[in-house]
């Protein structure tokens, strides 16, 4: 059975069917991309996966257990973590604190430990801080740990968000347009980083409009249009798929 299995999920807003019986599967250690025109329902799928929206019908199973009735605050615990299409950091906290919040659920000390600064508190705080520094180093923000998140340029803020998602020790990471607002060089770096993540054993689902990123990195691609899945397959198949070209990619690229 697939690692993450989405079976015919539907979401309606009033009369609008934003996601219409969409099914897909993700295997462990895969990078799967979801692409599709604006308003196709991609972000909505992420919101359903993470419990932000309840699903109207269908089911989602992760590692064999159904998760579609899980509250959003419990999704991370199960092992799914995400970034947002519009960056949502904790702007007045430092970069390292942002990432430490990500480690929150993996930090087990309690109220009493906090008040009495028990060895357990000290040990765990140290462990998690080291972990946060390690993640930030690996994403290239090692020199930024002391900065307040809001003072970072856009591209770096995106990276902090990814770092924070990784810090939850999630097994699956959902990235919603991580390369938006990055220039070609920066998205190149990002590409490298996402690959590294996969190699370290993370499973990644990616929403992205930057075809350079999508085609280079994805193991498989699903295409959504008007809430429905219209294609799936290897990058090369998708790039050549007539329906996808019409609905999404548009005419011949000018600058290919």
């Amino acid at each position, binding site marked *: 059975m697939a690692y993450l299995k989405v079976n015919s999920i539907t979401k309606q807003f009033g009369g609008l069917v934003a996601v219409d019986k969409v099914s897909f599967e993700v295997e462990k250690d895969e990078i799967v991309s979801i692409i599709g025109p604006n308003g196709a329902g991609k972000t909505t799928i992420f919101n359903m996966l*993470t419990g*932000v929206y309840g699903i109207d019908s269908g089911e989602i199973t992760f590692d064999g257990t159904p998760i579609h009735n899980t509250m*959003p*605050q*419990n*999704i*991370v*615990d199960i092992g799914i*973590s*995400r970034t*947002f299409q519009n960056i*949502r*950091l*904790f*702007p*007045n*906290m*430092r970069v*390292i*604190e942002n990432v*430490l*919040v*990500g*480690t*929150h*659920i993996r*930090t087990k*000390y309690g*109220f009493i430990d*906090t*008040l009495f*600064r028990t060895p357990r*508190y*000290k*040990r765990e*705080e*140290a462990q998690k*801080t*080291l972990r946060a*520094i390690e993640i930030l180093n690996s994403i290239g923000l090692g020199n930024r*740990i*002391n900065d*307040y998140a809001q003072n970072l340029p856009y591209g770096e803020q995106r990276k902090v968000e990814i770092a*924070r998602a990784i810090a*939850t020790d999630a097994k699956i990471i959902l990235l919603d347009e991580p390369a938006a607002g990055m220039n070609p060089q920066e998205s190149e770096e990002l590409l490298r980083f996402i690959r590294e993540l996969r190699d370290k054993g993370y499973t990644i689902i990616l929403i992205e409009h930057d075809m350079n990123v999508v085609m280079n990195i994805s193991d498989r691609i699903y295409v959504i249009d008007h809430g429905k899945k219209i294609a799936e397959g290897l990058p090369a198949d998708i790039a050549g798929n007539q329906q996808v070209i019409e609905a999404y990619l548009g005419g011949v690229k000018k600058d290919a």
Partner: protein
Amino acid sequence: MDKNLEKGKSKNFILILESFIEKYKVPIAGVSALILLGLPFMGFSQYIMRIFIMIGIYSMLALGLNILTGYTGLVSLGHAGFYAIGAYTASLLSLKLGANFLVAAIGGAVLAAICGLLVSLPTLRLKGTYLSIVTLGFGEIVKMILINWDKVTNGTLGLKNIPRPSMFGLKLTLVNNGMYYLMLVLVALITLLCTLLIKSKIGRAFMSIKEDELAAIMMGIKTTRYKALAFVISAFITGITGAFYASMIGFIEPNSFTFDISTLIISIVIFGGMGTIRGMFLGSAILIAFPEVFRFLMDYRFVVYGLVLVLMMRFRPQGMLGWKSQMPYKLPKLVKESLKKNNKDNLKTQQI
């Protein structure tokens, strides 16, 4: 342009100030402790000593509210309610059951905390203003209960002759400065409590809720639980302060706990610098001392007081001491050690 250069400087100034404090923190702490402990011997009148105690009381109240408003972002306009609950419960425990101060104060604080929980539970879904108005309502409802529940609270007549605390067989009063020292102990304990909480995953969870609740939820933080916790801790601190206040003043009535008290506490929090601990002391020192110092203004006293609030917000909206730390993040000791070791290891491997 000049103005901005100045701004740049002031930023540097904060860094310099902070490094200075960091460097000399032991002597600074020592001297402040000495001054605080020595105040009663400096020949101040009882009236002045009483103002010091009031400043201490409001520092505690501000510290309590700061947990909720400054760190968690939940604006309470009804903290006078928790204050009243602490004061009344403790007073009743000592008047009717003869409980000693410690027991009475903890009783008051616990009941306030329970009320904090009760207020928070149904209201945690509420956002911003909606939450604020509920807390405001809570404060008014507490007052109504105090007024109408004559049998227990003695209604508008209030409670009189609330005993002073006695410790080790000594009755603490204003005259023997016992109340002053008890205040210092309480302020120290509450400050410690706040500091410990803030520098932990609990504090970070509070702050993340303030910054972006949805993002916090998506990080797996059980925001409802933490918001309730913030309420409980805040109410607990406020309740204990109420108990102390009652035993200091000896007489409480429903009108001691009006909406004005709630707004005064929140003004102190913002005036001092929301989300900082240092600001609470300065904020209460200024706002409590102000009406006393400016008694000579007579009728205009509270006009000027209002003016001070307005001007302060105009020129320092982040509060007197409300700057964000410019110092590097304080890494836990263990982390620093292991980072050092790693560096050395790296060097070694490089050398080899």
